[in-house]
């Protein structure tokens, strides 16, 4: 027997970080929820406006709250099921502090408006590189630990962690291809339809491999531990793992149904989404059936309660997801708050409760004590469950109501409702949703207090002793080994096989879209943006306009009547990055160009409520005051040329002249409409961009 010590310190650090960023990330969520009901909460300054804070919320919750929790859980579980200390204390340390640095730096850059404009991948290129490096550190530390193990067989949780690691690495690298034009800003390597496909291949699989597979790793460890009995069916868990990672990777295109994405790719997304029900529900039932004969404990134990609700939410979200991937359902649900409700069932229910259950389990054990207050934990469970309901129900209602109103025609065949009417109708639902979020946040605060008191009353065991026989001293099994059993004992082969399985899906989906020109038919009248429009587009990305406005008109009667001709794939070939958006809190903007005079846009950006009473759009007074930064325009033009945008050779030398000419003409038109401004303000560039949108096909 060999004696060794588990490293609890790194688990503690990641655990505390989970709680800290959970409180911060959810608080930002509560603020932006109320901003949609009360636009005054945007405070009229750039750093607190919805478009910038929404990515802070999503990134903080996904990568800071959930990310830290995954690392805490994985490092706790790895050591125990492999019977060894983590590979390197130094790597653990670099991993922890590197990740926290990314979070802080990321939050600052997002608030400053440095964003790539791609959902859940908003962080800019220096941070993308840093994420890659830290992810490699995590990988080395994990694999080093696996290779030093004293348990021959790799428990199923480990497979899920390996699958997570390899797939997230692949997704992050492929989606982060970009050409930098300054130390902090870049343009996406892909454009339009291709950018959209890569982004949602990434976006969907961020849900799959950052928010789901590592949590199944946690589930397969903590549910048996909390219920004190082995998992219901280990056989199921094998199927669960392979089927899930293999199918998930294909489902991304279901985010792009009825868009300009080629039809075959959309169909692929739908088919694989439906197939996902089987492994997802198999996994959920495997977790719930583990509690057979232990349901009496569920009534009293807050940890088991949370695990049960977490798995139930997983089941609900994974049946709802495939339903939302059916084209006829998606036609109705997409761009509405239904999607928001769906993801929060997953985030608050599945992820959130799994994390809190894990922390309630870990902290008393590592501090060698019992939970400070079981009553408080039960209160947390109750208030947060009510919070989830108060969050989700109004959002479902808002989604249904708004979609019905969008598609309602009068008897004479006209649209019955203005877009604004469909917004003001659901504002009360936004307010109730904010209350739901607030309740969930209060519950999380209970957890912080309870766990803090637990830590205070106990004594932290930084190095926990255990003993096991070294692998070399363990007898090999006498019976013949099955091929898969052999793989399960060879982590590197398991890694390679997982990579092959997920890469197949990615390649089949992405390669044809890139290689076959007929997938994106060109339109001869579509031309590159002028330098001023390009700068305006960068402001559009900076302010996060895509968080509330789509630029993708689907081929439906109501959408064509409301917004104009449906969007074609060939219209986006110069869009690095694409800005199709995924939510219509405001109307679609793809054909906004030429719809209103410049003066309308000027007044509207200064104070949206002045033009549209009842509008919930934030005001953007700083765009009117700020001077337009033009010094890096040549660098931007050169970056675009590298990406294949056909600006004439040497255009970077003369682009500023063109920019000035166009800016002055817009300023003159505004002056003529009694608006005092000059051509060197940011608003001028934004107006130029908005007036260009969707007009090429009309030429």
């Amino acid at each position, binding site marked *: 027997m060999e004696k060794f010590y588990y490293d609890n310190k790194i688990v503690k650090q990641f655990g505390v970080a989970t709680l800290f960023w959970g409180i911060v990330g959810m608080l930002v969520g509560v603020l932006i929820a109320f901003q949609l009901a009360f636009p005054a909460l945007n405070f009229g300054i750039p750093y607190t406006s919805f478009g910038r804070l929404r990515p802070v919320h999503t990134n903080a919750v996904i990568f800071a709250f959930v990310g830290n929790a995954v690392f805490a859980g994985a490092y706790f*579980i790895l050591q125990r099921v492999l019977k060894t200390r983590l590979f390197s204390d130094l790597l653990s340390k670099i991993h922890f502090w590197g990740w926290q640095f990314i979070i802080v730096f990321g939050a600052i850059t997002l608030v400053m408006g440095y964003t790539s404009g791609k959902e859940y991948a908003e962080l800019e290129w220096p941070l993308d590189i840093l994420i890659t490096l830290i992810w490699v550190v995590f990988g080395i530390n994990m694999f080093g630990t696996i290779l030093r193990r004293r348990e021959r067989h790799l*428990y199923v949780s480990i497979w899920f962690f390996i699958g997570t690691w390899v797939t997230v690495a692949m997704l992050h690298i492929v989606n982060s291809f970009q050409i930098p034009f300054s130390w902090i800003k870049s343009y996406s390597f892909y454009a339009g339809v291709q950018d959209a496909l890569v982004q949602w291949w990434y976006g969907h699989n961020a849900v799959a491999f950052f928010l789901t597979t590592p949590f199944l790793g946690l589930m397969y460890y903590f549910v048996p531990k909390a219920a*004190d009995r082995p998992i219901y069916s280990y056989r199921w868990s094998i199927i669960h793992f*392979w089927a899930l990672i293999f199918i998930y990777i294909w489902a991304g295109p279901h985010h792009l149904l009825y868009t300009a994405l080629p039809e075959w790719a959309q169909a692929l997304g739908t088919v694989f989404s439906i197939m996902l029900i089987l492994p997802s529900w198999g996994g959920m039932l495997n977790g719930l059936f583990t509690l057979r004969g232990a349901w009496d404990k569920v009534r009293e134990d807050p940890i088991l309660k949370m695990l049960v609700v977490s798995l139930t939410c997983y089941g609900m979200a994974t049946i709802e997801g495939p339903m939302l991937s059916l084209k006829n359902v998606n036609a109705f649900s997409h761009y509405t708050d239904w999607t928001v409700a769906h993801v929060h069932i997953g985030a608050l229910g599945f992820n959130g409760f799994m994390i809190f259950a894990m922390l309630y389990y870990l902290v008393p054990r590592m501090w060698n004590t019992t939970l400070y207050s079981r009553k408080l934990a039960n209160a947390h469970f109750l208030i947060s469950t009510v919070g989830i309901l108060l969050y989700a129900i109004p959002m479902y209602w808002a989604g249904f109501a708004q979609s019905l109103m969008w598609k309602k025609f009068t008897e004479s065949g006209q649209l019955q409702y203005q877009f604004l009417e469909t917004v003001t109708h659901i504002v009360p639902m936004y307010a109730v949703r904010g209350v739901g979020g607030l309740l969930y946040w209060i519950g999380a605060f209970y957890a912080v207090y309870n766990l803090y008191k637990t830590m205070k009353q106990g004594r932290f065991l930084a190095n926990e002793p255990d003993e096991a026989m070294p692998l070399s001293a363990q007898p090999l099994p006498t019976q013949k080994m099955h091929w898969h059993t052999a793989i399960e004992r060879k982590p590197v082969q398991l890694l390679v096989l997982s990579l092959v399985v997920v890469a197949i899906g990615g390649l089949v989906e992405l390669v044809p879209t890139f290689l076959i020109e007929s997938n994106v038919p060109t339109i001869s009248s579509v031309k590159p943006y002028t330098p001023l429009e390009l700068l305006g587009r960068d402001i559009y990305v900076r302010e996060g306009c895509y968080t509330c406005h789509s630029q993708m008109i689907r081929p439906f009667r109501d959408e064509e009547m409301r917004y104009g001709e449906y969007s074609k794939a060939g219209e986006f070939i110069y869009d690095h990055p694409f800005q199709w958006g995924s939510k219509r809190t405001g109307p679609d903007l793809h054909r906004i160009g030429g719809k209103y005079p410049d003066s309308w846009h000027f007044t509207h950006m200064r104070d949206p409520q002045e033009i549209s009473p009842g509008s919930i759009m934030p005001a953007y007074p700083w765009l009117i005051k700020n001077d337009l930064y033009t010094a890096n325009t040549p660098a931007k033009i050169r970056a675009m040329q590298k990406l294949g945008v056909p600006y004439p050779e040497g255009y970077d030398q003369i682009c500023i002249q063109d920019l000035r000419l166009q800016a002055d003409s817009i300023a003159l038109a505004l002056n003529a409409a009694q608006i005092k401004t000059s051509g060197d303000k940011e608003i001028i560039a934004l107006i130029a961009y908005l007036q260009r949108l969707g007009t090429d096909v009309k030429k």
Partner: protein
Amino acid sequence: MKFSNYLKAIDEVSIYPLISLLLFVTVFVGVVIYMYSLDKNQIDERANIPLK
């Protein structure tokens, strides 16, 4: 995409979904066969790893 010039000869895109279905069925059937071929003792031993 510049490299598209070299590789755009790939056509018959409709074969891709068929290949994908075939691959999936193969993997799935393989895993199911494996699952049923496992010995009960082996399974129990693995399932009990976290509880050791």
